């Protein structure tokens, strides 16, 4: 059977399911962005690109973009670095490695509703754990209401989210480290390479498929970051922690401007498309460089 036939055979069922369930509904909802639908009404009217014009002039939208960009930047760095560090620390027989790995994976297993609530209880100014500790070590003037202060709310949520996301990165890196065979790293050590050099020259390049996945996931999860924001601040205080996804939800399901919300989701989608395409192009260019 020819290679082409195999390609078609392998791709047909998954792509069919995917197109029907993901792509078609997506474009249906994009259609709403050209209307003034309020989400409830049986009637709505065509408004062309009016919703998109509104996006361009809406300060809340610009605010949401800014917050999402901050989140993305943090997402690319923090969970990736922390996850890599943890994976490196744990993948070769530390005593109790299995326990530690499970501990760092545990956050992902916990229901988000509960995780969000616990972090709210960590951040409370009166008996929250963080401020409790800060006061006990003499830093009382830093012990503020983290989620109620518009300068810290976004950062606080990102931290809680990274707490979960790091476990994900760690797991992917752990699997990726299996591609780094022990012989290679030991050969480097025998050649006199220091730990840092062996890391940079041997391990990290061999981890690049895993790294690509982790960074891509971080980018995408940060763009979609709805649940954590919803549970902890609902985009507040005063939209200081509004991300694109939260803003879209707010507009659609709280203010009932479903048409406008759909327009926002179109923009969100396009941004993701551009960022990811750009990212993969860069990755491919780097891969060709190394060959």
């Amino acid at each position, binding site marked *: 059977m020819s290679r082409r036939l195999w390609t078609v055979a392998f791709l047909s069922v998954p792509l069919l399911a995917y197109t029907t369930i993901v792509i078609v509904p997506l474009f249906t909802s994009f259609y709403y962005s050209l209307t003034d639908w*309020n*989400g409830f*009404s049986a*009637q709505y009217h065509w408004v062309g690109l009016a919703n998109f014009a509104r996006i361009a002039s809406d300060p809340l939208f610009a605010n949401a973009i800014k917050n999402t960009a901050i989140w993305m930047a943090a997402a690319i760095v923090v969970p990736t670095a922390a996850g890599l560090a943890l994976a490196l620390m744990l993948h070769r027989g530390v005593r109790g490695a299995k326990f530690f790995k499970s501990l760092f994976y545990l956050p992902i297993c916990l229901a988000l509703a509960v995780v969000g609530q616990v972090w709210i209880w960590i951040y409370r*100014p009166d008996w929250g754990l963080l401020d409790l500790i800060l006061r006990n070590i003499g830093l009382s003037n830093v012990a503020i209401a983290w989620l109620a202060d518009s300068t810290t709310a976004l950062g606080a949520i990102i931290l809680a989210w990274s707490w979960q996301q790091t476990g994900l990165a760690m797991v992917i890196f752990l699997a990726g480290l299996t591609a780094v065979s022990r012989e290679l790293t030991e050969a480097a050590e025998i050649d006199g390479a220091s730990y840092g050099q062996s890391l940079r020259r041997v391990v990290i390049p061999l981890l690049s498929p895993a790294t690509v996945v982790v960074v891509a996931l971080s980018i995408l999860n940060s763009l979609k970051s709805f649940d954590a924001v919803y549970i902890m601040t609902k985009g*507040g205080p*005063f939209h200081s922690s509004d991300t694109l996804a939260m803003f879209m939800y707010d507009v659609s399901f*709280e*203010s*009932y401007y479903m048409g406008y919300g759909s327009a926002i989701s179109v923009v969100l989608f396009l941004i993701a498309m551009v960022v990811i395409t750009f990212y993969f192009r860069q990755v491919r260019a780097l891969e060709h460089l190394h060959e």
Partner: protein
Amino acid sequence: MKKQGMWTIGMVGLVGALAMLLGACGQSANKSEVDVVHYFSDTLGKTTVTSIFDAFTKKTGIKVVDNTTGHEDFKTQILVMLAADNPPDAFSYWAGARVQFVVDSGRLQPIDDLYKKDNLDTLLPPAIAAGTVYNGHKYLIPFGYHYAALFYNSKTMQKLGITQPPKTWNDFLAMCDKIKAAGVVPLAVGSKNRWPAQFWFDYLLLRTAGPEYRARLMAGQAKYSDPEVVNVMKMWKVLWDKGYFVPNANAYDWTDAADQVANGKAAMTLMGTWITGYWNGNKLQPGTDYDFFPFPQIKDGVPNVALGPIDGWVMSKNAKHAAGALKLLSFLLDKGSQAPWAIGQGALAPNKTVDPSIYNSVMKKASEEVGASEAFNFNYDLATTPPMAEGGLTMFAEFMNNPSKSMNYLTETDKVEQTVFKK
């Protein structure tokens, strides 16, 4: 091979799911049932409403298929169901601007005939009955309502020697001064989710500018930069400047504020009667541990209006089981349903034939207060259309964070109002 293990598990799972599907197919052909969705999802609420549904089934033989989910997700769920033309037959909803919104979207069935047939109007006090009419037709069955007032810690007030509720605004300020001097914070507000702050705005506006002006503002016919509203923000700011509020109000939820009052850290909180349900759940006693007094009068000659939400039930247009749904709605207005509901929720029963002895001392007092009021108004986020409510609620939260910029907030809210009401 491990891979085969996974396939096996997958196959087993698929077979199992198929079995479930086949099992499910058998159930859906039932004609004598009613699909409902509601937001009474807390443990006590769910048990109470389920027992009411059971009583209904016993009486009529019609099964109630209850699709409750969390209160937070209710909004998403109901919107999706209505938008995709597969609505529940009946669902719970908040009387006021929200029902108006759904009525204007053409999704609700008028129930004038039901009211006429079962003589339901005779069961409702006029203030509550007003909340069932939209665009000249009846759409809503009121299920329970709440009254917002200043709830306080009885023991704290006793210790401070405060025995009389304040009758005027100056009385109130003097009382707060006395409380503050004794080292207790007078007022707790938990405005993390914004809405608890709205009662301050509402009552200050009602007591100074009156219900007619407020109705115009809610309908987008007055501006947030009007002198009446500016005055409200000024008075509110006075409370803030005098240090009457617990700091960092936006860090706390309304339950946290309730806890602060119960713990003695704060003296009072402006909240609805559902707080009694919360406090009862934490084993506090009505009267001995907590009580309330109504928001004081401020200006002479302004009508005494009670403020609070009404939880009700509505029926979808094109409901699949219309007859059953109508029967259910009527049943929910019956005093046999309203009494256990009120007790369980710390709510007041709209049905005026309910025996007042079911209420504890505090709720009884609340019921009397509402009865003595000249009108019943919905709180802000139920009195104005949802997109406007979003803007207003944000303003209240911003105020509780930093009231010095209130003129800015008012201008911003004006802009929101213009966008919302220009259609």
